[in-house]
């Protein structure tokens, strides 16, 4: 119920983005959830690209071009947004949730309210927007890292040639699928984490519980949303 109320309230707080106080929190969150996660995301992307290509091309014997096309389809449509969401959930949602839970337990959320500052506009909105942008861009970085690794694995020094063939083999809608899923997953992770952080018991024991529950609920939300995307994709 609190989650729905929070979702309902978020759009009405968008005008507060005009205030630098909110934009400052947005930039801090972008740095934490986005910039600082780049090395890990790129590393996972490289590993996924290498694993898939090695299995398809070297173990099963699929052609180089076919392996790269399969890698592109699987990465862009599923693995990049999903694995990025999993990394972001593990890395950022627990931090987000425990920070807000600690603020609630120490009365800082009430202190904000009593100064006339809406906690949803000041705390939740920038976190949700930052996570959406971070998830969207990191999904693209993930896909790029996986495809570059795959192209190198298949074509060695001709990796650029292998990569240049890809756009003809993939529909445009598949290229859009990756950032769109990233946006939705990012929103889900942040809303679930913020909701859990803002609501719960007013005791310090609730802080680690909030962090752990935020991770579990965000994973659940991401996988349910991914299933919905699959159903939606099949209906098109």
């Amino acid at each position, binding site marked *: 119920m609190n989650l729905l109320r929070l979702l309902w309230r978020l759009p009405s707080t968008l005008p507060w983005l005009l*205030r*630098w*106080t*909110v934009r400052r929190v947005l930039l801090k969150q972008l740095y934490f959830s986005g910039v600082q996660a780049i090395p890990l995301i790129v590393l996972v992307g490289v590993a996924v690209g290498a694993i898939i290509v090695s299995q398809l091309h070297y173990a099963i014997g699929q052609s180089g071009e076919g392996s790269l096309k399969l890698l592109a389809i699987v990465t862009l449509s599923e693995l990049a947004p999903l694995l990025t969401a999993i990394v972001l959930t593990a890395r950022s949602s627990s931090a987000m949730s425990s*920070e807000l839970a600690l*603020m609630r337990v*120490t*009365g*800082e959320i*009430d*202190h*904000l*309210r*009593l*100064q*006339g*500052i809406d906690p949803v506009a*000041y705390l939740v909105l920038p976190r949700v927007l930052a996570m959406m942008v971070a998830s969207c861009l990191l999904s693209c970085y993930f896909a790029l890292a996986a495809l570059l690794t795959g192209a190198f694995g298949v074509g060695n020094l001709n990796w650029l040639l292998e990569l240049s063939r890809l756009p003809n083999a993939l529909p445009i809608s598949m290229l859009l699928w990756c950032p769109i899923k990233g946006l939705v997953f990012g929103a889900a992770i942040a809303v679930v984490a913020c909701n859990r952080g803002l609501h719960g018991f007013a005791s310090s024991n609730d802080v680690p519980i909030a962090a752990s529950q935020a991770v579990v609920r965000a994973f659940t939300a991401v996988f349910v949303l991914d299933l919905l995307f699959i159903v939606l994709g099949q209906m098109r």
Partner: protein
Amino acid sequence: MTPPQRIWYACDGKVRDAALAHFAAQQSGPKGWLAGEGGLLGNLRVWENMILAAAHHGAALDAAMEARLQQGLACLGWDAAASSALFQSTVAALDGETTRKLLALRTLAAQPALVLVQCEWFHRSSTATLDACRMMLDQGLPNARWIALGTDAPPAAWGFQSAPLSELNHALER
């Protein structure tokens, strides 16, 4: 007859929490908030805490704001060097007395129409701090409405008038 500008309600616990939320919701814009304990955000530096409410409600961070803060800092007994070090510090490094002074300074910076006070803010502060804060806030916020909530009455020098609890209960029921 004009209504009193400074009212004290003798209440505590959940009634006080409800009353604080009620009065805060009635007034738009930034509000002064003098908490008995804490009151600043731990994940911001002191200077960010001082201007947060004012900036969040669109106040310009201009020369007037800087002059107001400098005047307040001087009133509270901090010179330029001490102020600079204080503003750069984290909230965790502050003691209770300094925090209570900073809450008053934040209230001055926000220029609110309404100031909410937990009576513990008065009773935990030293006389010297209270005198300095009163002088600063009387000069800086001559037209603000003040509401104090707590079981112990605010010091007489602050000029609060006691209001019956029934009035508060009536306001909360509405």
